[in-house]
């Protein structure tokens, strides 16, 4: 009934109830009065309606009879006075007659018609609008409605004698008008005559309205009065009839005003009586209650009573021996008891406060961030260290849920509990503490790694958790730095190990590139390349690559210094970094994706050896740690490249002749072995030449070793000019040479080559102003015809060379006698 938050005094509650009761009483009395009046009026109205119906039915019958008789008498008077018998004066006579009887005549319109229904005479001008012809002149009773004037007439037709056997009909029109209805009017009764649902006459003064004056209901209320409506048909004829509607108006026995005045009077009287009998007493009682309330309120607020209130309470206990006195006594005892309890509680609270302060001081002294929360995650303590860590004092976070400081947890589910590994139920209790490593977030959104050590205890109601929070940001940073250094060391070690491996330099660089690209903390894409400076010192050549697009393999194979990013790094000898595919990228192709670069020159002291080119993702941020590592890596690469290049040089020197640069005997054997193995696989022939320069010793002895050396070099050039690219020429020592011709299909092919060599060397040499003439003798062995091993084949060629010497020098001979050598 009332809002629980709304204060309503006892006086008002009592007054409200009394008011409601009175209103209910008045409503009940009013309802009964209304029911009584309604029933009574219904009975009276029904009774009256029955009387009116009977009366009007008789009245109409009486009228009909009277008007019928009058019409007959009217016709008789005209006939008796021979008014119509003089055809010359009949209409003047009739008009004069009608004028004279006008004030006593009930028929306002008179027509005379012939048997065919045609109008012969009209008396009143209004009848000019009546029909010119009447279809049923001989019908004694008719109805005629004049729509122009909205008037209904009862028409009486009488056959009338007009002299000389002339016969006609006189039509007498009796209007059913307001005057007629007023003749039978009753007080408090309205009457209407309707024709085709339209009012044509009424007993009302003034205009009438079909809509407002006639109702479809037989009973309705209007202007505070009851209207009972009845109706009867005019006659029992089986033709269209007017209807007489009568409305009986009844004034209610009890008017609204009277009922209101009576109700008001009763209401006021009862109110006064109630006030005198109950109100004053209730006022006294509520005043005592109010005093008790004030005393209780004072005690509630101040926890003790003022001397005045204590005196008042004592007096109330003794004033009257009733329930209120007992209540005052009980309140006195209660205040005494509460006072004692309060003192005990205050002492206890002081103790608690001391302990609380001790606890705070202890947590401060620990230097550890301490957090205490309940089983619902609501924070109930957080020390200054926590406040420093999160930038919020305890007063700001008290009562908040711990979930909002944990990553990806919400207070509404158990995710924060799972994250902190809290026991799910009381049964999962454990006495030991546990640790959780997670990330925490501050209110400003910043996050930091933390290690939380949790423990709990259980009070009367729930678990209370204590958490020591350790910010792990610095520790993790140190660990990360150590990890990078460790990885770097491994990577550099790997690069160094690769440098020591017996592998070609290109392979070493490919492996080295893979090692650099697989350093885990290095934020580079798994693609890159290593360039080496070409012999001209102006270009770079891509030696190793990983993951490069096919377009780049072609476009970047040879780069001039200063072209594109790698060229710039080579020319400027400094690291080039870009985070996007910008204008410095001189090389591009359709579909190239955005990326950035680290391009580092590979320097050995001041000598540029090459460029290390690494790809980074777009928007990559330049990182000093990355640069430091890459510098170390390029330095290591420089060592690797220098070592590789030295190794290749030594390896070359071991297998080649110093003077001519041709493979020496040792390398020849390796090359010949490969050629033989290949020929065996391919089922082809290999030709082996054993050549000895003719007259070389004489030149050497005559013009010295310098000229002899030059002669050897120029001879080699002439020999090489006669060979295919795959053919190999090697110097065995002195003026002896071997030639290996792989992939021969016929032994004669070797002969042709030998013939060309002989011709070339037969030509004169011009060395240091000396014209020198030498020649060459060639012995040829064919694999596998002349042998299948290296030694056999060289030996057979050697023997064949001697055959050529013996044949006069300057010729060639096959080891096999079966091979024909054409004569010159």
């Amino acid at each position, binding site marked *: 009934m009332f809002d629980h938050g709304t204060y309503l005094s006892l006086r008002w509650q009592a007054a409200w109830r009394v008011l409601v009761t009175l209103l209910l009483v008045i409503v009940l009395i009013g309802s009964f009065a209304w029911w009584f009046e309604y029933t009574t009026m219904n009975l009276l109205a029904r009774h009256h309606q029955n009387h009116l119906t009977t009366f009007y039915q008789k009245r109409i019958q009486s009228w009909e009879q009277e008007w019928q008789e009058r019409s007959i008498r009217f016709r008789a008077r005209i006939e008796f006075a021979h008014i119509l018998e003089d055809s010359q004066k009949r209409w003047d006579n009739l008009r*004069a007659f009608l*004028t*004279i009887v006008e004030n006593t005549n009930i028929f306002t319109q008179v027509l005379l018609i012939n048997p065919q229904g045609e109008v012969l005479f009209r008396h009143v001008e209004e009848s000019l609008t009546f029909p010119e012809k009447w279809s049923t002149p001989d019908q004694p009773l008719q109805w005629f409605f004049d729509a122009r004037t909205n008037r209904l007439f009862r028409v009486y037709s009488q056959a009338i004698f007009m002299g000389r056997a002339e016969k006609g009909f006189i039509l007498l029109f009796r*209007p059913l008008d307001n*005057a007629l209805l007023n003749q039978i009017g009753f007080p408090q009764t309205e009457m209407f005559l309707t024709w085709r649902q339209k009012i044509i006459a009424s007993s009302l003064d003034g205009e009438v309205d079909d809509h407002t004056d006639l109702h479809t209901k037989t009973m309705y209320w209007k202007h505070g009065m009851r209207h009972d409506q009845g109706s009867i048909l005019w006659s029992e004829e089986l033709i269209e009839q007017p209807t007489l509607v009568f409305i009986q108006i009844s004034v209610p026995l009890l008017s609204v005003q009277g009922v209101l005045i009576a109700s008001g009077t009763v209401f006021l009287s009862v109110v006064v009586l109630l006030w005198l009998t109950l109100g004053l007493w209730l006022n006294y009682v509520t005043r005592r209650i109010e005093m008790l309330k004030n005393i209780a309120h004072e005690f509630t607020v101040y926890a003790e009573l003022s001397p005045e209130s204590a005196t008042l309470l004592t007096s109330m206990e003794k004033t009257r021996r009733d329930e209120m006195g007992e209540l005052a006594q009980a309140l006195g005892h209660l205040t005494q008891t509460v006072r004692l309890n309060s003192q005990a509680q205050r002492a206890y609270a002081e103790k608690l406060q001391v302990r609380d302060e001790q606890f705070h001081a202890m947590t401060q002294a620990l230097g550890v961030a301490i957090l205490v929360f309940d089983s619902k995650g609501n924070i109930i303590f957080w020390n200054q260290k926590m406040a420093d860590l999160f930038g919020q004092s305890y007063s700001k976070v008290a009562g908040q849920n711990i979930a909002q400081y944990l990553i990806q947890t919400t207070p509404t589910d158990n995710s924060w509990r799972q994250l902190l590994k809290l026991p799910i139920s009381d049964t999962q209790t454990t006495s030991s503490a546990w640790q959780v490593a997670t990330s925490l977030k501050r209110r400003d959104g910043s996050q930091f790694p933390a290690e939380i050590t949790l423990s709990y205890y259980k009070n009367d109601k729930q678990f209370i958790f204590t958490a020591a929070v350790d910010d792990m940001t610095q520790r993790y940073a140190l660990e990360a730095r150590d990890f990078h250094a460790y990885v770097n060391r491994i990577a550099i070690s790997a690069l160094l190990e690769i440098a020591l491996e017996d592998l070609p330099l290109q392979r070493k660089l490919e492996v080295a590139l893979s090692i650099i690209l697989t350093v885990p903390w290095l934020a580079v894409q798994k693609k890159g390349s290593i360039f080496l400076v070409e012999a001209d010192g102006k270009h770079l050549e891509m030696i190793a690559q990983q993951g490069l697009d096919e377009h780049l393999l072609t476009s970047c194979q040879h780069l001039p210094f200063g072209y594109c990013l790698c060229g710039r790094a080579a020319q400027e000898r400094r690291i080039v970094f870009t985070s996007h595919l910008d204008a410095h990228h001189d090389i591009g192709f359709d579909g190239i994706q955005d990326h950035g670069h680290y391009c580092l020159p590979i320097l050995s002291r001041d000598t540029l050896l090459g460029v290390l080119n690494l790809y980074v993702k777009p928007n990559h941020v330049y990182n000093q740690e990355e640069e430091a590592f890459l510098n170390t890596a390029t330095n290591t690469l420089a060592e690797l490249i220098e070592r590789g290049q030295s190794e290749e040089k030594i390896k070359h020197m071991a297998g080649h002749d110093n003077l001519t640069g041709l493979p020496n005997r040792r390398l020849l054997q390796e090359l010949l072995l490969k050629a033989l193995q290949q020929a065996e696989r391919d089922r082809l022939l290999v030709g082996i030449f054993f050549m000895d320069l003719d007259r070389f010793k004489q030149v050497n002895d005559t013009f010295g070793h310098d000229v002899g050396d030059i002669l050897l070099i120029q001879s080699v050039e002439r020999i090489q000019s006669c060979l295919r690219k795959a053919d190999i020429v090697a110097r065995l020592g002195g003026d002896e040479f071997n030639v290996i011709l792989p992939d021969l299909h016929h032994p004669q092919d070797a002969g042709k080559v030998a013939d060309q060599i002989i011709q070339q060397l037969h030509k004169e040499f011009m060395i240091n102003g000396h014209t020198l003439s030498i020649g060459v003798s060639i012995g040829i062995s064919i694999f596998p015809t002349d042998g299948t091993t290296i030694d056999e084949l060289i030996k057979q060629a050697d023997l064949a060379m001697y055959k050529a010497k013996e044949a006069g020098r300057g010729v060639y001979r096959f080891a096999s006698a079966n091979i024909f050598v054409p004569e010159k």
Partner: protein
Amino acid sequence: MISPRIFLFVFHMACIFFLPLQARSESADRSPLPIVISVPGPRNLSYLPIDLISILGSDREENVEVQLLHTGGGALALKNLTSHNSDFAVAGLPAMISLNIHALQAVAVAAVDDAPLFVLMVRANLASEVHTPADLRGRRIGVNSSSLTSKTTSQQLIELMLRTYGVDPSEVNFVPAGQSWESQSSTIRTGQVDAIMGDEPFASRLLASGDVFFLANLADPSLVSPFPGANFLHAVLIARPEMVSQSSEKIAKMVRILRKTLQWMADHSAQDIVKALDLKDVDERKYCLETLRKYPHIYSKDGHFSSRQLLETERFFKSSNPTDPLASSLKLATMINEHWSGLSE
């Protein structure tokens, strides 16, 4: 305390319920208001303004449709009024006084005429016998049709005239002669009456046709001896007393319509009036025009009453009803509606 939501609901329901009623009443207001006037006639010169109302359309300007209920005399018009068959009646003021002499049943709200126009005419074949009204003793005299409750002005006039000439009214036989051409001419021509206290233009028409001769003409002092109240007010617009309080708007409209018609007649010639009447009968048109020209000042110009007219009428009524004690104490002012009379202007 009714909550605002319940109040709004009730308000909306009331709007929904009452709006159609309002619309219906407005649509009903747009149709012309029918007003039935019962008046002697038709085409009686004294009541000609009433016949002209519909012809001129004065009623339609007020969104009214006037319907005329012609009677043979002012008394019958008053009977129609009191029996609620008409909203208004137009009749001679003396006839209205006669009706009200016992109880107030009608009040005059506007004047139609400004001068009485009655002619005492005698059948032509009696010219040798009748020379003065005194010679009418024992004869049948036609008057406007009276009723049981009201005596027409023409009967009061002839009675006064006869007394003036020493003839008691009981010595003659009064016969209703109507107030139209058909009724008055037929009663004369058929010999039903010897004389008629008749109206124009019927009298002039009968005179011209040789059926009658004039014995007295109220508009021609040379043909009538002076008598008290000779300039009494004849035709007036009459309403029921309760209408004044209950249907004042209807009366206001009717008075405005009548005033417009009277104003129009004052502003136009007799020929214009006859042309407006659109009379088919040549003789009727002729004598109507002739009498209108002959009596140019018979109509009120604004429908207002004058104290002089009322005084004359009171004197006339008292003179014509000397034996009636109620007539002597008559206060005509109580039968004139002050609001519409124009007496205060």
